[in-house]
Structure formats: structure tokens, C-alpha cells
């Protein structure tokens, strides 16, 4: 574990150097421990792949006290199990109709479209981080056989629900936005709904499975093409 200064009221904890379920589980455990250790002095936390940004109230406490409390709580942190957190299944309509890059991706990888779908929906992902936009969850890791770099020219508008791949990460666009990821399908479940409680179906540390569905089911679940 390493602890570094981030800003006038922020320290950042590094809990590993690579993307792995074990490191991610440590980040999750550290986030829970930091909440307990800092209590009312805590303003916000940003858990990510291998780090935890801790933002505190500098008018109530200081970097020395926060650093000491974080070190103490990390020293007693148990090795967390990677299997904790929920498993959430999200339905995806994989089709060129809603996944403009599905066929080109299959072609460039020497696979059939069905093989790409089977590889994408055939494994369990972990939510490593949430950011870029509200509800945008970075899921990893995508099978190497379908990992693809971002587009050279990002699209002006990617629709809400678009399921996409960038390198070994996959994600569902929570709202229409510009984007450079490879689009392979669409999910009818809203990833960010300000009116819902909770507003997101997943949190950092959860595991996600994709279930391939047909057009009729996609539309019945509220999906739009």
C-alpha cells in the first residue's frame, strides 16, 4: 500500500499496480475502512482500478490526522475475498442494427458475429470503476480475442444503452454522448436513472453477466432501436 498527497484536501491510496479482481477487492475493502476511519470528516471517495481517492474536510481535520487514520485502518485490513459484491445480469440485444461495429469487429478478428457474441456474453465481468459520466461503469476484462482499440475518430453521438468495447474493457453508455468505443449491441436497462433509488443497477466491486436476448424481448423490456 502507498499513500500519496493528491491535493489540498485529498490523499490517494494505491492498493496495487495492475487491474485484477484481487486488487479491486482490496480497493473495495479500503473504501469501507476509510468511511469508518474518517466518519464526518470524509467528503467523498473515488474508488478506481487500483486506487482510492479520499477527499476530506480540511476545515475540520488535516492531512496528518487523515493520513494517520488511513494508515492505521489499512494495517488491520483483512485480505478481502474477490467473490464479494453482487452479481447483476444485464440483457443485451447484440445485432448490427444496434451495434454498428459488431460485423467489422468480427471480420477484423477472423470470427463470426455469433462467436463475438458468445465471447462477450460468456464470461463474468467486474465493475472496476465508475466515471467519465454519471453511471458509466468500466467493466473488465474482455476476452483478448475480441479486445479492440478505440475508434480513430470518435462518434459525435452514441445512444443511451449502447454496449461497447475498448481494449479489454466493456461498458454500457448511460446517456447519449460522444464516444469512441466499438458498439456491439444495446442494453434496455437504464444504467443511470436520477429518479430511481438506487440510481444505478451496479456499484464498483459488483460482478456483471450479459445475457444475449432477441429483438422482441429487447423491445418488450423498453429498449429502443
Amino acid at each position, binding site marked *: 500500500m502507498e499513500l*500519496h*498527497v*493528491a*491535493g*489540498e*484536501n*485529498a490523499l*490517494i491510496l494505491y492498493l496495487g*499496480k*495492475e*487491474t485484477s479482481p484481487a486488487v479491486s477487492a482490496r480497493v473495495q475493502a479500503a473504501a469501507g475502512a476509510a468511511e469508518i476511519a474518517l466518519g464526518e470528516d470524509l*467528503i*467523498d*471517495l*473515488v*474508488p*478506481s*482500478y*487500483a*486506487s*482510492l*481517492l479520499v*477527499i476530506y474536510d*480540511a*476545515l475540520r481535520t*488535516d*492531512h496528518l490526522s487523515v493520513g494517520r487514520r488511513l494508515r492505521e485502518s489499512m494495517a488491520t485490513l483483512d485480505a478481502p475475498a474477490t467473490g464479494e459484491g453482487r452479481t447483476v445480469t444485464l440483457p443485451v440485444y447484440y445485432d448490427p442494427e444496434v451495434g454498428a461495429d459488431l460485423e467489422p469487429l468480427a471480420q477484423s478478428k477472423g470470427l463470426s458475429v455469433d462467436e463475438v457474441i458468445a465471447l462477450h456474453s460468456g464470461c463474468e465481468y467486474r465493475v472496476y*470503476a*465508475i*466515471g*467519465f*459520466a*454519471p*453511471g*458509466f461503469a*468500466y467493466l473488465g476484462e474482455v476476452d483478448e480475442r475480441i479486445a479492440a482499440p478505440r475508434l480513430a475518430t470518435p462518434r459525435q453521438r452514441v445512444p443511451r444503452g449502447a454496449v461497447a468495447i475498448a481494449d479489454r474493457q466493456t461498458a454500457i453508455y448511460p*446517456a447519449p454522448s460522444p464516444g469512441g468505443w466499438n458498439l456491439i449491441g444495446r442494453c434496455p436497462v437504464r444504467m*443511470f436513472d*436520477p429518479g430511481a433509488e438506487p*440510481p*444505478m443497477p451496479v*456499484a*464498483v466491486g459488483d460482478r456483471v453477466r450479459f445475457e444475449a436476448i432477441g429483438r422482441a424481448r429487447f423491445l418488450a423490456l423498453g429498449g429502443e432501436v
Partner: protein
Amino acid sequence: MSLRVTQPGVLSLLQDRGRFGRHRLGLTNGGPLDPTAFSWNNRLLQNPPGATCIEISFGGLQLEATAETYICLTGARMSLTVNGSERPGWEVLRVGEGDSIALGFAESGCRAYLGVAGGFDIAPSFGSTATVAREHVGGLRGEKLQAGDELPCRPVTRHRRLYLPEPQRPRYHDSATLRVIPGYQERHFSRLQQRRLYSHTYRVSQQSDRMGYRLEGPAIECGIEGILSEGICHGAIQVPPDGQPIVLLNDRQTIGGYPKIGSALSLDCAQLAQLGPGASVYFTPISQHTAHNALHLAAHYIDATNLAERAG
């Protein structure tokens, strides 16, 4: 009652002190780019410290009052007229039913704050009224103000007419010095690269907005290209591969994968956000102790300064 928007100006946003504790949903802070001018506004109006104001970037906002209340303008210098007659900033002013309130364009600084007695009565989303247009969250519809918008507030017929005397008001210059707390990937920037940042003049580029201020100047090289995406705090100074630093502000993304050399003090980010394209920016490193003390002194200054009062 309300203040009705007749002309929204360039970019006028409802803001409270910001949205906190929601980074895990990917929600950023929003809030006033110049919290100093924002805090003075609420202090002059004797509002709760985080009451909702309008942040006016560059000017041009026009409003009509639908009942009697009291308003106050702080921050960037912009002309303020009520029914066509010039009125002062940094002072609580009475407006009556049907009065039209008009702001000109910024003459020094570029962010002004217009508050009302009791604050605007806006329903919070995710615990805050702060408008972040990129996220479609906060304000009236998650967007900047538009003509016809009604900004609810309460009618007030008596109020202390406090003002901040001229010598105590913040000054807005055409340059800013950012005190930097070295941190994050600091150790991956060589001593030479650090010296380059701290000894040259940078300029505010055209691509500067509420997310961040992009600066132009001698390129800073980092020993590593990218990092695993990690949390970005307010004021973080990100150095992308082109070596041109970006100071990340209120509407920044919450995580990112570019190396950062440290973070600028929020008090100085407030000054930075008052600058327009072409203005000069300097960096100077400070310790976290010094930063901590500066924050306490600044908070105390706003709380403890004696305000003056007009009769009647």
C-alpha cells in the same frame, strides 16, 4: 414570487456550493467556480453559506422581479442596472415588483454571482442544486438558464442593506499565480520538468470551461505515458502527452488516466476561473501545511470581516 429570466446571457447557471459524496455514481461537484465571490454574496445577504445563487459567466443576464425582494451582485465587475439606472455591486439592493434587472458584460474577471434574500428555492438533485450541464443534473432542468425561466424565491419587504467596502473586495487581474501542492505522479516528473512548470509563464487557451482550464506554454514531459484511471480531485493539474497542463475544475470528470504533477489551491483556482483566454498563469509550489493554513485564513476572513451598512 420569482425572478423571471428575460435574457439568459452567455452562460448563467444556478449553483449552490456543489454536490458532494456522489463521486461513486460518477457525478462531479459543480458549484461556483469562484467560491470566494459566491460566499461573499451569501454573507452580504445573510443567507445560509451554501444558498443557491446564479453564476453569470461573461454577462448579459436580464431578470424581472415579480414582487419586492433584495438582491446582491458579487464577483467579476459587470454593470448592473435596475430599471435602467446604474446600481453598485457588492451591496444588498431592494427591487420592487416589475423591476427589470440587467447585467452588462464583464469588464474585469468573468464570473459574477447574483443572489437573492433567502436564496433561490430550487429542488436539489443528488443533494445539491448545482447545475452540471454535461451531466444534465441540477438547476431547473440540468441546463443553463433560458428566457422565460422562473426562479422561485420568497418576497422580502425589509432587509439589512449591507455592503462590502471597496478596499475589502477581491480584485480581478489579468494574471493569476497558482499555488500548487505537489502530489499524485509528481515523482515521475524530473526536477528539470518541475522547474520548467514553476519558472515559465503559461497562457489560458480558448479551450477553457467549467471542466478545466487548458494552458499553453513550454511543454512538460512526464516519465510515464499513462496511468490506470484514478480519482481526480478539484484543482488537479493533468499533463497529457502534448505536455500542455490542464487545471481541472468543478465540472471535471471524476476519474482519468493522464499523469498529474499536483493540484492547485482552490483559492487560486477561483482566481484562474476569473481569467479569459490569453491571460497569464504562473505556478509556485507550496507545502500541504501552507495550503491548510491558507484555507483556514481565507474561511476566517470571509466570516470575520466587518460589513458596512447603508441607512434605510
